[in-house]
């Protein structure tokens, strides 16, 4: 597919996402709504994978560079960061293994539960 056309479709979906975001009673980022919208379009077959593949792969593979403006923006809050450096780092670093542990164990238990159910069904 033509890359220009693909980007046009993607921008159109994002535009719709921005509109829907203002209608929802709870606050969900427009980009997430666009993600869900695109997923629905793909799953329902309205949009084919090849109609957005090139642009989607390009954007997701080079996603990292899109975070630079936000990260450089920290410069503006350097004094906030300096004042709160210790809680900031502590919270960020300490919560990671806790979240991993809780998630991994929950899924591991769920997998055992669901597999057992499946076996019972077969019997």
């Amino acid at each position, binding site marked *: 597919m033509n890359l220009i056309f693909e980007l046009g479709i993607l921008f159109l979906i994002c535009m719709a996402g921005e509109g829907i975001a203002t209608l929802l009673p709870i606050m969900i980022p427009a980009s997430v709504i666009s993600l869900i919208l695109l997923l629905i379009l793909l799953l329902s077959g309205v949009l084919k*994978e090849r109609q957005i593949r090139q642009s989607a792969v390009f954007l997701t593979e080079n996603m990292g560079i899109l*975070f630079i403006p*936000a*990260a*450089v923006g920290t410069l503006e809050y350097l004094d906030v960061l300096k004042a709160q450096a210790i809680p*900031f780092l502590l919270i960020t670093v*300490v919560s*990671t293994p806790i979240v991993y542990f809780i998630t991994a164990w929950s899924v591991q238990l769920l997998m055992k539960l669901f597999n057992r159910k499946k076996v019972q069904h077969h019997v």
Partner: protein
Amino acid sequence: MFEAMTSSPFFGLALTLICWWLAVRFQKKTGQLIFNPVLVTSVLVIAILLIFHIPLERYNTGADVIKMLLGPATAALALNIYRQRAILKQHFWPVVLGCLVGSLASILCVRLLCRVLQADGVLLNSLLPKSVTTAIAVSIAEGTGGLSGLTAAAVIITGVEGAILAPVFAKLFHITDPVAEGIAIGATSHAVGTSKAMEIGELQGAMSSIALCVCGIITSVIAGFFAV
């Protein structure tokens, strides 16, 4: 002349693109996760702005063009879920429930630690979405009144930490199920972790890339209720 050049959007664009290219090459050469290209590029750009006394607003003239693509890039993640739909269907409930638990765990953990350390509200709002992919985390923080720069920094630190320690965590916590391992990596350390999960195994990589999308969606819906 210097001012005219740095005031044009091309300054921010050229600086970001070239530093990014250098950082990606640097990581490939060293092979170290700690030299995350986002981290290295940000440090490079900040250093250049500080050394040459260039105000952030001038950089932003060009950077805003790059930032604008974050929305379409987030939407494009839908393709990741779509491509993994067969495996998602196979493990639907463990994925959805696991991601719900993971998202809640991350948010509650940040809230609890913020209370213990008596951190202020702005810091809390900035850190709430720390476990989800930067694109979604930044828009969540902007919506809840956090500082998106702090959020981006926390997300990247979390991602690098999770990616480096993922094999250690699996051993330490006795995680033997590849589905559980993949979801936990994706739920904890989003896209950076997913690249590591792909090295660990194909199933882990697939689960991790699904989890990062699903957790992003769940967190964006529930984070607002936990912000102050």
